């Protein structure tokens, strides 16, 4: 059995005048998470839909567990679980009914389908809500039910298409826990996301996609080295104090780096950022700012945003200027 549980080579797909995929290659190692990082319209969902047999590519080939996706879609469907970008559970059915239905469609005998549903409801903390229609669920509960539905058949490969988009940070961490547990359990995961933080938290390897192409393939560590790792951002209450803030930050900059005015958060100017090597710098910075009497409204460590990653990798903002990014209403929700 091959070590690569998902393989895609040269996937191309065109929708009307939009070339969604321009030749995507990727591979997921058995028992690992591959993070697919990119902005809206980069081709993440199209790639997942092709691998999940929902869409045929114009060119290229793909295998899941050595089964050809184009030639034997039925066999591939027995191996995969798909969780879409927006929770695709049936809102009128209860949580339990949703899961039992999937079990029945997977040919589990009635008793097993019900037992499997209970098992997953319990596991995802949905037992108390099992008898309520899914439309009464919160966003986080829906995502969990959606993920549970994709696990009914104990798939070898799980496709997670932006599983945390729109969730608040606490719910996001909760979903991360679920994904990690799946991998610990032996599943392999292809995860798409718009957050470097999420890819960093979950993925063993990351491919960065833009305009239907893979523009980088690396480990999270390698990618962070290339885009500068953690940054410290400080926003003084009085923008006039920014020069002083820059000076303080320069003193803690990672080797070879210097503090700059923050450009990524364009809507609120008046902050300075600096690449740093770790959180040990926080104490000295806070002390220095307090010593100088600079009041701050924001001070924190963060990983580069998607925009910063793209700026570093391509020298252009995410979703480059050479094509139009189709944004559907669904993606905006």
């Amino acid at each position, binding site marked *: 059995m091959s070590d690569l549980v998902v393989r895609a080579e040269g996937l191309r797909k065109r929708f009307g005048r939009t070339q969604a995929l321009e030749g995507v290659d990727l591979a997921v190692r058995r028992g690992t998470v591959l993070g697919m990082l990119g902005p809206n319209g980069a081709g993440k969902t199209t790639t997942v839909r092709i691998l*999940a*047999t*929902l869409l045929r590519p114009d060119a290229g080939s793909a295998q899941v567990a050595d089964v050809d996706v184009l030639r034997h879609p*039925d*066999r591939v*469907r*027995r191996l*995969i*679980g*798909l969780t*879409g970008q*927006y*929770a*695709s*559970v*049936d*809102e*009128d*059915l209860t949580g339990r*009914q949703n899961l039992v*239905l*999937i079990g*029945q*469609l*997977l*040919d*589990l*005998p009635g008793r*097993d389908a019900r037992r499997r549903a209970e*098992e*997953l409801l*319990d*596991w*995802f*903390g949905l037992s108390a809500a099992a008898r309520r*229609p899914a439309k009464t669920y919160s966003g986080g509960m829906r995502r969990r039910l959606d993920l549970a*539905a*994709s*696990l009914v*058949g*104990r798939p070898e490969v799980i496709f997670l298409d932006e599983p945390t988009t729109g969730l608040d940070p606490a719910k996001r961490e*909760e979903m991360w*826990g*679920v994904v990690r*547990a*799946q991998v*610990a*359990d*032996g*599943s392999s995961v292809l995860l798409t996301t718009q957050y470097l933080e999420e890819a960093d938290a979950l993925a063993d390897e990351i491919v960065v996609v833009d305009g239907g192409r893979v523009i980088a393939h690396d480990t999270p560590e390698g990618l962070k080295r290339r885009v500068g790792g953690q940054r410290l951002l400080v926003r003084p209450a009085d923008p006039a104090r920014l020069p002083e803030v820059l000076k303080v930050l320069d003193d803690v900059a990672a080797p070879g780096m210097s503090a700059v005015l923050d450009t990524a958060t364009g809507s609120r100017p008046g902050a300075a950022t600096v690449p740093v090597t770790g959180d040990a710098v926080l104490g000295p910075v806070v002390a220095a700012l307090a010593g100088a009497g600079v009041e701050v409204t924001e001070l924190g460590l963060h990983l580069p945003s998607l925009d910063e990653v793209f700026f570093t990798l391509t020298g252009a903002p995410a979703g480059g200027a050479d094509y139009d990014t189709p944004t559907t209403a669904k993606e905006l929700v």
Partner: protein
Amino acid sequence: MTILDTAGPRAVRHRTARRGGPPVALARHAVALARRSLIKTLRTPEALIDVTLQPIIFLMMFTYLFGGAISDGDRHSYLQFLLPGILGQSLAMGGIALGQNLNADIEKGVFDRFRSLPISRSAPLVGAVAADIVRYLTVCVVILVAGAAMGFRIGTNPVATVAAVALAIGFGLSFCWLSVLVGMLVRSPGAVQGAMFMVIFPLSFGSNVFVPTSTLPGWLQAFVHVNPMTPLVATMRGLLVGGPVAGHLLPTLLWMAGFLVVLVPLALRAYSRRA
């Protein structure tokens, strides 16, 4: 959080796939999906207005508002004539909701999940259509009960009545594939209704539903004679009120077969192209 401290979902492995060839599997999956549609219907009873209140309104409107003028004051005779016609019209209208629901399902992404499962591509559509049996049965019961309250009397026998109901459900199940097809082609549930009305209004008014064909101008009679609603309603009249059946039944069955032969493959093709 219970997620991390209980056994993983792969802890128990029991993949006891059931036996049976593809047709058996399709039937089993379609039944499971039909049950889903029925649960949804029961949860939103207001979705049944088009097969309960609406036929009653048509029945009362034509009997009491227009019936006197149409039949020269003999409303009872007109009700006997009208009721099988309203039944035919209501069956056609009753299928609209199916296309709307399927369209909404696709928009919401529910069908993506079904399409990623190892089931026949047609199972979700076949299941949804099968669940519509309940709606067509409801139409029959509602119209016969409301009609009886208004003075309609079945002029035949129970066997013929059951045959009429069976034919009604069969017609509903074959005609509704048009709604399924439209539901796969248009962008919104509202558009399904608009498109279906464009078809159903000419079929139900340009027919023998409301007035005898002989009262119509020649060019309109020509349309009435090629309208599938006409033999259906004529058969219904024969089975419920009395009169010839055989001559109308055959064309009705041929139309039903025609709907299935033409519309089912088109709907399945549109479905696999969609999304």
